[in-house]
């Protein structure tokens, strides 16, 4: 340990080990994931996932810019870890396949709010907008901040606008004013509506049937439904 070059070589080697393990190898394994056929016992397999509509792509940028990922994760853990599935945050665990069209991919590291990987399966766009204006409208014990800057509060014109947010009286704008969601809010709502990991895959199969039933086991994927990249 007294020679500069040897020290450098040692450091280089340990950095290279870490880099090869956590950067290079996953890149080789997952770097070219393409949509795969879903696994389903009742319907024809389809390609999953689909590319996102433009508004949802914009919404992902709003999600990034607002730092939503500091309080919300977008990853459902398997049934053996935590209560994610038992809480109804998803129908199955999240897998790498779910994220191939997302940009940026912000899985999050902390849950001050609930997981949003399947927000689209729990909320429609209106509920989403209502929560952005004031989360306590729908859930009075929410600790989430309000995101009022995503809305315009403006004087009602000749008639109330059709896209104005409807809120209970104590959360509403003053008499004669209305709350109009701005484009970022609409985009965020679109992104949330598209957050749905609702297809079963080979690596994330439907839950095993309860013991004592005659339902076919699903862990053994039927032939033809094997995870195979679409060419």
């Amino acid at each position, binding site marked *: 340990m007294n020679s*500069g070059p040897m020290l450098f070589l040692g450091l280089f080697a340990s950095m290279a080990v870490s880099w090869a393990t956590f950067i290079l190898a996953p890149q080789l394994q997952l770097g070219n994931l393409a949509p795969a056929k879903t696994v389903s016992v009742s319907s024809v397999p389809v390609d999953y996932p689909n590319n996102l509509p433009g508004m949802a792509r914009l919404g992902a940028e709003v999600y990034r810019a607002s730092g939503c990922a500091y309080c919300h994760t977008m990853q459902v*853990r398997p049934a053996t870890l*935590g209560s994610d599935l038992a809480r109804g945050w998803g129908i199955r665990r999240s897998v790498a396949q779910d994220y*191939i069209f997302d940009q940026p991919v912000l899985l999050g590291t902390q849950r001050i709010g609930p997981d949003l990987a399947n927000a689209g399966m729990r909320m429609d766009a209106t509920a989403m907008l209502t929560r952005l204006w004031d989360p306590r409208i729908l859930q009075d014990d929410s600790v989430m901040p309000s995101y009022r800057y995503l809305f315009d509060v403006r004087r009602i014109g000749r008639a109330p606008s059709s896209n104005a947010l409807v809120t209970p009286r104590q959360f509403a704008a003053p008499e004669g004013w209305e709350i109009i969601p701005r484009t970022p809010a609409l985009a965020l709502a679109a992104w949330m509506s598209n957050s749905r990991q609702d297809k079963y895959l080979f690596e994330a199969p439907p839950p095993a049937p309860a013991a004592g039933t005659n339902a076919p086991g699903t862990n053994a994927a039927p032939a033809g439904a094997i995870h195979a990249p679409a060419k």
Partner: protein
Amino acid sequence: MNAIDAPEQRAAQVSSAELKASGSVPILLLFASAAVWLLPAWLLALVCSLKFHIPGLLAAEPMLSYGRLRAASDTALLYGFGVPAALATCLWLLCRQGRARLAAPAVAAVGAVFWNFAVAGGLWGILRGAGTGYEAFEIPRALAPILLLSYILIGLCGIITFHHRQAGPLYPAQWFVLGAIFWFAWIFSTAAMLLLWEPARGVLQASVNWWYENNLGTVFLGFAGLAPIFYFIPKLTGRPLHSRYLAAFAFWLLALFGSSGGMPDGAPLPSWMIGVSVAGTVLTLIPILAVGLNLYLTARDTPSTVDASPSLGFFWAGLIFWIIAGAQQVAGALPGVGSLTNFTWFGVAQRDLFRCGFFAMTMFGAAYYIVPRLADPRCNWPEGLWRAGLIKLHFWLTLAGTLIGYVSLLAAGVWQGVALDNAANPFGSVMRSTLMAIRMSTLAPLLLFIGAAVFLVNFALLLKSRGCGCRREKSSTCESPKEAA
């Protein structure tokens, strides 16, 4: 070899005063900017924390929304304070232990200036919504190359200084310094490449981000904080380092295991990645124990002169917090524990303890030793300042802030983890029940902010002490006579 970690024992070819003065401009610049950035870092964290008291607070102001504030606060702490303070300490240690003048101080100074402009621009960008969204890597895309280039400028000066060192065995602190300097350049360029310039596909972005965050904390900040600990604890206690071999053992294991971690259990990644990550994290326990044991045995029979240096307390506190934070990281990686504590305040408590309790504390200690010596090369000891107790005040403020934040967030995290594990407990009410602890943790950024203000005052006083207020002839117990000469 029973190495005595005292470079003064080597023949001095470069005169002491000259050596001390060399590189004073870039190193002081880096330290000063680090000290200034602490204020916004903790002020932003304070506002962030206040949102848990009043969820409607500042709701109309996009620049002050929770997510952006937290990203900005992290960025100011890591890139405004963390990296410059680490570099300043590293450069100084390279000069001191290699008995060499800082190479190309002007280049390093230019690098420091550009770095700070980039951080300022980045902070503004994040508050305006241009952050990348990747935790601990929020600097907007356009500014990442500037950060990388300025880092390389400063780092190169360090490497060249190292190259010009006087012949002789390398000291443990030098290994850590060199490791830190290389490591950041590697991980930052990898992250910039795979997250910003040619984004990796899908979930790989998350794994690159976690890999980066883990390496930035455990290895880069870890090495940069351990280097002064390995240099100063033997020096200030007047005891030779107990075992050089144990230090080498810990160093290499930290480099190997510390760099393989950070993937949360249950993440949508191949399970081998999570397995390797858990194994690596758990194995860091060995180097953590080795470092703790080594320094404990070093200082075990320290004579009562320990109190002589204000820096020493910072280093001990930093070392203890490093051990606790490391042990907590190991505990959190264990499968049975991780399933409870992942995604809770547990991880935030650990991270804050590492950054504030270990890293910032260590940097403060280093700054209190280095800055007065650079400001006035002939000065031995800022005695007046020490008596004024401002450094003590800073120490206790930082310690109290760190501990209050740590204990309350740890309690919140454990409570949240255990309660959430039972799906019968609704999410909202569990979060509600952690609010008390989270609100208590608001004191932490407040105390740390006041501490940072005191640090800035101390810093200014130390700089002002140039040529006055120092007793040149009277060598204090912690200085070797040769250095005073």
